[in-house]
């Protein structure tokens, strides 16, 4: 994947002469010319794709170049602001390491050797392989791994082709257990953006969530407002996070014991009758069973498990109770920790129910009831074989369980999987146990990766298709469901650079070649969007100008006498005791089980986020790379002293299975417990084509060789690995 300057020029020449003219004018000159009034900037609204929050953004364009991005004031997720990553969006657009042309693998898988190809050649190759798989194994043998907006183009392609096997890491590697737990309790999830009513909370609890470092634009705006208002913050985290630094109570809990704390809180709240009796009588089921189940979960018992003091447990439980119902126990987002994560989410839900905060001010507000009609489309064919992406998990979500597809790919049962299409996700960094991922990939006849950047996963592909960045393409309309309904448009801010193409075009081209053109009955996506706008009564021209149109709320966000609550559970009530779980053989009330603890000399590896990076997606972005170029391993000062590790020195992590990490800087700190180490996820890229990110920092996913599968929904708990910290070069 090395391009000489000459080939680069050729490639950019192909993108059009006008583009070459822009490129010749340096940005400085453009800015100067603007200052002198020779040029006028144009402002184009779109929405961001650096993370999943999909903030409305307005791009300032000077002579065909994006010089600045700002939040769209009309967008509810942005409110005129963008985070560091959103501000750095043009860094993706102008990253010289971007995928520029279709590439076809020439070396062995993983050798990272490719040749350039034309779109026709690459698409024909994909179509012929897909046809071959369909005829030999059936269409179900092609799976799709996807995340974000590309899903809107490639999932219809997969369905039209005839396969049900989609896997989104956002379920089994992220939000899955949280949503399932809340659905089992309240009949619905918390949504995204989460419907947490932070600005009215009197008490806010964060379990392991480091909001702030976890940069979710509008939610962090609310968080800051809450802090300024004097909301009491309880942070349960083995690490003194930024949020913990703001907290009224920081509970530095022993990792993997959160459920014990929650059960003790339930115990205290019931024992001291701090719960909302009227609310429970009206809306909840199973209080007696719950009370019986937590009878033994005393604060003293929990103190022993959690390494917190019984007093602090009681004190915080009372704080919650006394401020009910205006308390918010944030259910978090990335919830795949220990393999009993649905039950932990259930415990949060039960606490919320006891305190009466679901559907109440300062707790969780209710989504708008406004809905939009579904556009008519040709029905997809019914797959002949049962989907295998749900495994044997009774509560697996429609997003699919990624590692079930991987497992079937390796074993060939219940039927073989021969082709993977990967869009918008870097599987190598998203899924635990990379060895299994590589083993599965080696069984494939076809691996297609559609991405903007040459990610680690792209560098395993047979065919790489260069998608243009979010600033160069149309995508499906984004519909946000919060207090009100918002419709946002993604539209090209500039023309695609190089030989990159929008995702919709790629999907449509593949469909055409598979004789599935009927499913994509439009010339270009804009035509489809326009039709959709017409159906929804939205003025498309207006939308193009403002970026986001909000349909005002039609339902009450809070439960009132006039608008009593409805719960879509089996019983129509909040399930403190879950019959559904009982029927499937699971604990109807969450029960604490003790998890393994690190042995002498080992630390539990926990990971999280930096506010300037999204997954592994932004590690190569010039503006973000310079703020946080490589991750560090946080290690307790006392432990570091014992190991002779000094702050800033490079160390190596070695996990329980002997896997060694890339070298990583030690952050020796008082800010973490002695029994765990912490890293920011998404570093240590293996792709040599990422000139900035390659081999910078350690890849936490490489250390996660073990994972604890939640039997309820199939999600993979990934905070279950133990590492030793070695000085660099000791056992090299």
């Amino acid at each position, binding site marked *: 994947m090395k391009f000489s300057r000459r080939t680069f020029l050729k490639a950019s020449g192909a993108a059009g002469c006008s583009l070459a003219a822009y490129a010749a004018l340096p940005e400085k000159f453009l*800015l100067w010319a603007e200052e002198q009034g020779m040029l006028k900037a144009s402002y184009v609204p779109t929405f961001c794709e650096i993370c999943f929050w999909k903030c409305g953004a307005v791009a300032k364009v000077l002579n065909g170049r994006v010089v*600045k991005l700002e*939040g769209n004031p009309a967008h509810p997720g942005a409110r005129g602001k963008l*985070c560091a990553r959103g*501000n750095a969006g043009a860094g993706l657009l102008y990253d010289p390491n971007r995928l520029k042309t279709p590439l076809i693998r020439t070396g062995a898988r993983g050798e990272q050797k490719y040749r350039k190809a034309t779109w026709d050649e690459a698409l024909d190759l994909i179509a012929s392989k897909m046809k071959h798989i369909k005829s030999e194994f059936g269409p179900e043998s092609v799976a799709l791994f996807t995340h974000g907006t590309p899903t809107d183009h490639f999932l219809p392609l997969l369905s039209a082709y005839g396969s049900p096997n989609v896997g989104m890491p956002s379920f089994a590697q992220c939000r899955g257990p949280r949503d399932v737990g809340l659905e089992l309790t309240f009949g619905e999830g918390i949504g995204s953006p989460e419907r947490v009513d932070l600005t009215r909370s009197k008490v806010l609890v964060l379990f392991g969530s480091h909001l702030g470092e976890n940069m979710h634009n509008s939610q962090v705006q609310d968080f*800051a407002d809450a802090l300024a208002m004097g909301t009491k913050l309880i942070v349960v985290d083995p690490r003194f996070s*930024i949020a913990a630094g703001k907290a009224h109570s920081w509970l530095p809990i022993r990792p993997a014991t959160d459920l014990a704390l929650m059960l003790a809180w339930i115990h205290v709240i019931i024992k001291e009758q701090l719960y909302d009796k009227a609310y429970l009588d009206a809306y909840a089921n199973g209080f007696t069973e719950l009370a019986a189940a937590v009878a033994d979960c005393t604060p003293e018992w929990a103190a022993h498990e959690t390494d917190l003091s019984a007093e602090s447990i009681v004190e915080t439980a009372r704080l919650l109770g006394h401020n009910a119902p205006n308390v918010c126990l944030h259910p978090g987002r990335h919830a795949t920790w220990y393999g009993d994560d649905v039950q932990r989410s259930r415990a949060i839900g039960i606490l919320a129910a006891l305190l009466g905060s679901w559907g109440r001010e300062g707790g969780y507000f209710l989504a708008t009831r406004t809905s939009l009609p579904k556009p008519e489309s040709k029905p997809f064919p019914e797959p002949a074989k049962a989907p295998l992406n749900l495994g044997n998990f009774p509560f697996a979500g429609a997003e699919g369980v990624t590692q079930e597809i991987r497992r079937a790919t390796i074993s060939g049962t219940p039927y073989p999987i021969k082709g993977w299409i990967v869009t918008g996700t870097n599987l190598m960094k998203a899924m635990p146990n990379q060895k299994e991922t590589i083993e599965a990939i080696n069984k494939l006849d076809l691996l297609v990766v559609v991405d903007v950047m040459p990610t680690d996963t792209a560098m395993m592909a047979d065919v790489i298709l260069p998608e243009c960045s979010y600033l160069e393409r149309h995508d499906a309309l984004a519909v946000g469901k919060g207090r009100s309904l918002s419709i946002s448009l993604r539209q090209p801010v500039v023309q695609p650079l190089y030989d990159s193409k929008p995702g919709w075009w790629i999907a449509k081209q593949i469909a055409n070649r598979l004789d599935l053109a009927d499913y994509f009955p439009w010339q270009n996506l804009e035509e489809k969007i326009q039709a959709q706008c017409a159906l929804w009564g939205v003025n498309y021209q207006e939308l193009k100008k403002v970026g986001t149109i909000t349909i005002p709320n039609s339902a009450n966000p809070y439960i009132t006498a006039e608008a009593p609550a409805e719960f879509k559970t089996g019983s129509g009530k909040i399930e403190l005791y879950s019959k559904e779980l009982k029927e499937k053989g699971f604990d109807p009330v969450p029960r604490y089980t003790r998890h393994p603890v690190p042995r002498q000399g080992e630390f539990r590896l926990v990971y999280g986020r930096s506010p300037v990076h999204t997954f592994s997606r932004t590690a190569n972005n010039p503006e973000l790379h310079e703020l946080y170029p490589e991750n560090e391993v946080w290690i307790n000062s006392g432990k570091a002293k014992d190991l002779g590790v000094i702050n800033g020195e490079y160390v190596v992590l070695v996990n329980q299975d002997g896997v060694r990490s890339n070298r990583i800087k030690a952050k020796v700190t008082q800010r973490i417990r002695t029994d765990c180490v912490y890293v920011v996820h998404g570093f240590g890229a293996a792709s040599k084509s990422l000139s900035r990110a390659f081999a910078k920092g350690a890849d936490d996913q490489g250390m996660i060789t073990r994972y604890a599968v939640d039997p309820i929904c199939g999600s993979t708990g990934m905070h279950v690995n133990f590492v030793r910290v070695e000085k660099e070069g000791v056992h090299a």
Partner: protein
Amino acid sequence: MPKYAMVVDQRRCVACMACVVACKKENEVPPGQFRTRVVEQVEGEFPKLRMELRSELCNHCDNPPCVYNCPTGASYKSPDGMVLLKKNRCVGCKACVASCPYDARYINEEKGFADKCTFCSQRIAEGKQPACVSTCIGKSRIFGDLEDPASAVSAALRDNHHDVLLASAGTNPRVFYIKKFGKPE
């Protein structure tokens, strides 16, 4: 004549770095250089810790050492209170960089002049807020006119205890901090 100032409400800051990137993009700051930064300061021993988050920038001092020490008059204090630079006059002697107690200046690697925060004077001229303020996720940065009693900065300074950085340096900064350590009383 307005009297521009900034207030940083540290209680609201979550060290998300949006300001840092927005500033760089707005002002075309070269790679590796910055006009604003975020300081994360933690004191104490586990588990008794406290944290201060502080975003720092040019203080646009009313008594600016960088202006006094500029031999060519390139650095100047504008009537509305901003400390600015006439780029074409700067010889790059670095006296201003050395004289700033806040380390707010740098030599622009691409152009050689002594660069710094301008409160985004170009945006203010257009009636916008400085880029860092406009994008500040926590609304921690507040910008406005001290002469206007109704402005957000005036209100914030009226309602809160506030501080300036290195008050003893006698520089009379125009950037004020509403400070509070991690543990509220």
